[in-house]
Structures are given as C-alpha cells and as structure tokens.
C-alpha cells in the first residue's frame, strides 16, 4: 500500500481505518440515496455487479494471462439459470440460495467446456476463439425459443423472482428501525457481501500454490511445464474459476432486474469488463475494483452533460450518449499514454516498467514496497 498524504493517522490505527471503511460502506446507499436519488443507488448496485465480474475476469486474464473476450457468456449463463429456476417461464420457483450455486456450477462447467478446445491457443488466437464463444452463447439465447422454448428468444424472460432470504422478499421493502429500505438498498447489501467474499477469495487465490502456477503459466508455458505444472488442469481451473464469478454475478443480476434478454449480454459488455481491469491495473484486485467503479459511474455521470448544455447553451449541442463514448475513448487512450500499467498497477507491473530507468531506481522502489 502506498501512503496517502493526510491519512497517516489511519495507517497508525488499522482498526480505526477498518471501522471507518465499514461504516462508510454501510451508510453509502443512504448517503447516495438522499443526496442523488434512488437511481444512483441502482448505479451502485451495478458497480458491485461489475466488480464481481472484473474480479472474475482478472483471474483469467490478469493472473493466468489467458485473454478472454467472451467473458460475458458466463454472466449470461448464470442469469439464464436463475431465470429458468425462478420464474413463471417453467413454473419453477426455487429459493435463491439453491439456484445461485447451481448457476455458478453451470457457468464453471462451461468455463471448462470453453477451456478444453483452446488449451493449445495463446494470445490473438485465444482471443478470437473466446470472442466467438461469447457470441455463440448470446446467439443461442436469442434463438432457443424453438423447437423447445428454452430462452424465449429475443423477448427474454420476464417476472423473475426477486431474492427472498428468510421470508424477507427484496421486492416488498420492509421498514427497519424506522428507516425505509427500498429494494435497491437491500440488493446493495447483498451484492456488497458477495463482492467482499469475492475479494477475499481472489486475494487468497493469488497467493496460493495455484496462483503461483498461474503466474508461471502467464510468463512462460514451456518453463512452467518443466517445473512440474500441469498445464491443462491449471488453465482449465483458471477458466472455471473466472466463470464461477461471472455465473454468480449473472444470477444476482437476473434477480435484481427481474427481466433478462440476450441484449444484455453483447460483445460490448465483455469488452467493457476487460477495459475495467486494463484501466484499473491488470492482475491486481484493487485495480479491478477501481476500474469497475470508474467505468460504471462515469457514463452515468456524463448523462448530466445533456442538462448542463440545455441550461448553459439553451439546447443540446452534443448528445450525451455520443459524448460518453468519446470521453470513454479519450480516457482509455490517455491512460495508455500516461499510466500504461493501469491506475493501480500491481507491484510487479510497476517495477517491470520502471526497469528501463535503471536498476538502482528500481531497487529503491522495491525497498519502498517492502517497508510500506
């Protein structure tokens, strides 16, 4: 961790820092809800869903170095499993805690299914095949309404059951300690719990034996195999682990939205999640979280540019949606120019780029890291 100026007192008291962070996370929907309105709490919910996905994709791309451009397929599979088992579509209404593991397992199996044929592929070839896989899943969802109506085609599946935990339905908000808890608030806490769990799992994985095997695989496959690493299992495990995170996020998304259709799972979504981890800093969990937050919040915030133009100029000169894409592009390009390893780059990435400035410089950096 780098020290933040002005926050030194927190470094001295980790307990206090933790308590402050916990309080902030608990109060966040109330702060945002009262300050900016309920629609922004909804944005917060999506931030958490994208964080889950970014953490998952980071395992595949950041840890193991396997470029996956079809990641959203696992999100779609998790969402459809939820919709099949908790909606009038098949008349099934299984509880949330039964479906979510099923959806995660199903997505994980598809991760292995994708991984098996691409075991020998790397780089560009792998990216193209995974891109195709993502599109195949979406097209299947779009067309599997005949001969047997599995997905209801482009219309999607509607009236998906909301999450219900211990008799508490997230659709019928309770009053709790005199406070109104709208569904978006309840989902915030649920998603927050899953995100925290995912962060814990991802960080443990990185430091584990399999995490080291992933790093070796990313660096040099031949040498990794010569160290006794089973390439096939290690790669499949990366795909499966990443897919499980996507599947969980997809299930939560289906319950939250109450409606899913293939439109939500386009190639653009895969690329967006990839941009999140590239922007934040490949291979590290904090970077994935930051990237997910930025790329979910910024487009929403830019919507206000339309109103701003109307007040200042009297008319909308540039459509905010067009502007969003433009600024998005500018942000990514300038990031590549000025911070090529991501906003929060991992220790190793940073040092790799610093190497050109000479070994002495870099050794100072490593000292700095070990002390902080």
């Amino acid at each position, binding site marked *: 961790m780098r020290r933040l100026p002005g926050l030194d007192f927190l470094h001295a008291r980790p307990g206090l820092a933790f308590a402050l962070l916990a309080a902030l996370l608990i109060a966040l929907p109330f702060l945002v809800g009262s300050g900016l309105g309920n629609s922004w709490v909804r944005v917060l919910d999506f931030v958490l869903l994208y964080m889950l996905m970014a953490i998952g994709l980071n395992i595949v791309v950041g840890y193991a170095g396997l470029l996956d451009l079809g990641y959203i397929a696992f999100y779609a599979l998790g969402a459809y499993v939820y919709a099949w088992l908790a909606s009038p579509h098949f008349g099934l209404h299984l509880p949330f805690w039964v479906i979510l593991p099923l959806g995660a397992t199903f997505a994980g199996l598809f991760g292995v299914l994708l991984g098996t044929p691409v075991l020998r592929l790397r780089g560009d070839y792998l990216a193209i095949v995974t891109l195709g896989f993502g599109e195949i899943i979406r097209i299947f969802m779009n067309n599997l309404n005949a001969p047997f109506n599995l997905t209801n085609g482009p219309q999607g599946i509607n009236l998906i059951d909301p999450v219900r935990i211990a008799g508490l339905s997230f659709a019928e908000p309770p009053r709790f300690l005199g406070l109104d808890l709208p569904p978006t608030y309840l989902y915030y806490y649920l998603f927050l719990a899953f995100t925290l769990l995912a962060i814990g799992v991802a960080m443990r994985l990185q430091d584990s034996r399999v995490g080291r095997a992933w790093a*070796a695989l*990313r660096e040099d496959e031949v*040498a990794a195999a010569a160290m006794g690493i089973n390439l096939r299992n290690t790669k499949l495990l990366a795909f499966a682990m990443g897919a499980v995170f996507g599947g969980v996020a997809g299930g939560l998304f289906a319950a939250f939205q109450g409606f899913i259709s293939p439109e939500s799972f386009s190639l653009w979504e895969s690329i967006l999640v990839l941009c999140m981890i590239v922007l934040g800093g490949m291979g590290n969990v904090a970077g994935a979280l930051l990237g997910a937050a930025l790329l979910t919040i910024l487009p929403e915030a830019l919507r206000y540019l339309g109103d701003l133009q109307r007040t200042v100029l009297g008319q909308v000169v540039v459509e905010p949606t067009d502007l969003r894409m433009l600024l998005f592009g500018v942000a990514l390009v300038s990031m590549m120019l000025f911070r090529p390893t991501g906003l929060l780059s991992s220790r190793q990435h940073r040092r790799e780029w610093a190497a050109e400035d000479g070994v002495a410089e870099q050794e100072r950096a490593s000292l700095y890291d070990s002390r902080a």
Partner: protein
Amino acid sequence: MSLLAVRGLRVAYGGIQAVRGIDLDIAQGELVCLIGPNGAGKSSTLRGLMGLVGHEGQVHFDGACLTGRATHEIATRGIALVPEGRGIFGRLTVAENLAMGAYSRRDHAAIRVDMAHVHALFPRLEERRDQLAGTLSGGEQQMLAIARALMGRPRLLLLDEPSMGLAPLMVRRIYETVTTVAREGVTILLVEQNAHLALRISQRAYVMESGSISLSGNSPELAMDTRIRAAYLGE
C-alpha cells in the same frame, strides 16, 4: 545400467523430420554433451525427451518408461530442463523464480537448504533476490535458469545451449558452475553448438548431424578427432 536410455527417438514437425531415430545412454553421475551444428536436431531431442513435442521411440529413465508422458509428469520424476533462451519468469522476482523450481516438492525444510545451496553457487542471485527476473542481465538470467532447475533436486539436468548470446567471460563462469554441479553428483546432458567448450568439460559426447548421431565417444578423444577438429573446432 544407465540412468537415461533412449532408443530410436524420432521427432517430426509436420512432415519435417528433426530427429531421425537416435540412441542415447547416460549413466548416473556422467556429464555428457550433445554437439552439432545449428539445425541438427539437438534442441528437438531435448524437447522430445521432455514430452514437449510429439515423438516416437523409447525413453527409459531410471527403469521407468517415459514415452508418451506429459511434461509435468516427466519433470516430477526428476528430469529438469533449462530451455533454450532460458525461459525465466520475467515478471516474477528472482526469489519467486527459484521457489517455482521447487513447485512439485513438499519438503519445505529441504527446499530451504537447497535455496541456501544455490545462493552459495550463485551469490549474485541472492543479491538480486527481490529484483524482477526480466531485469537481470543475460548471464544472470542463465544462472537463474540453472539455479531454478536445481531447486527441483533433479537427477538429470538437461541444459540447452547455456552459452548462447553470452559474453565469453560469462560463458566461462557458467561453465565453471556446470562443472561444479556435475561434481556434486547431478547427471547432466549438455546440448551445445560451442563444441570446443562442451568437449572440454564433458566425459562423453554425441555428435549430431541432420537429425542423426554421426559420432560418439569419449570427449578427450573426440576433441582430438580430425573430423571434429575440421568441422567444429575450425582447425
């Protein structure tokens, strides 16, 4: 009884035969070199032995048949490869690279002993333990690749062109270390283009040309052989 016995090893890429049925025997504790010109099939031989490419023929190691086994299984049985171009993990630190060498071992106390041992062999690596391996010089990277292979406590070490791309002084340092490692009892198969050096430190040698073994024998005798002198030693 040889530690490694190879019979009729063939390696082909598509229709091109890189190794055309060769026999090799290496006894426990020997330092044997495989020399020959560029493109003779030396590296392909090592890749075949490690199961990195499809191959035909029999490979017996310590009495067990390795033919058709996966690379990681072969590595776990005690054969370590220092690949051509070194194959270090550039974005991991020196210490992490060395730890990866012991990946398939669980005897943590012995791993620490071996870590101290390779640090004694290569003091430079201890100085640079927290540095990213990709920022080391070529010679240091070669040292790291050899040290990492030793961390697996191999019974047979396969070295693929350790002198490649290194300054003469560094080549000498690397070769001194290879000799030390061999003296400590590790059996070594050394692949080299630099016949002069390889013949000087090895006990026996195989000469490979266009995928076949053309000559073999004791290294000191081969070093005096007129054909070798003419073809490889530039005399």
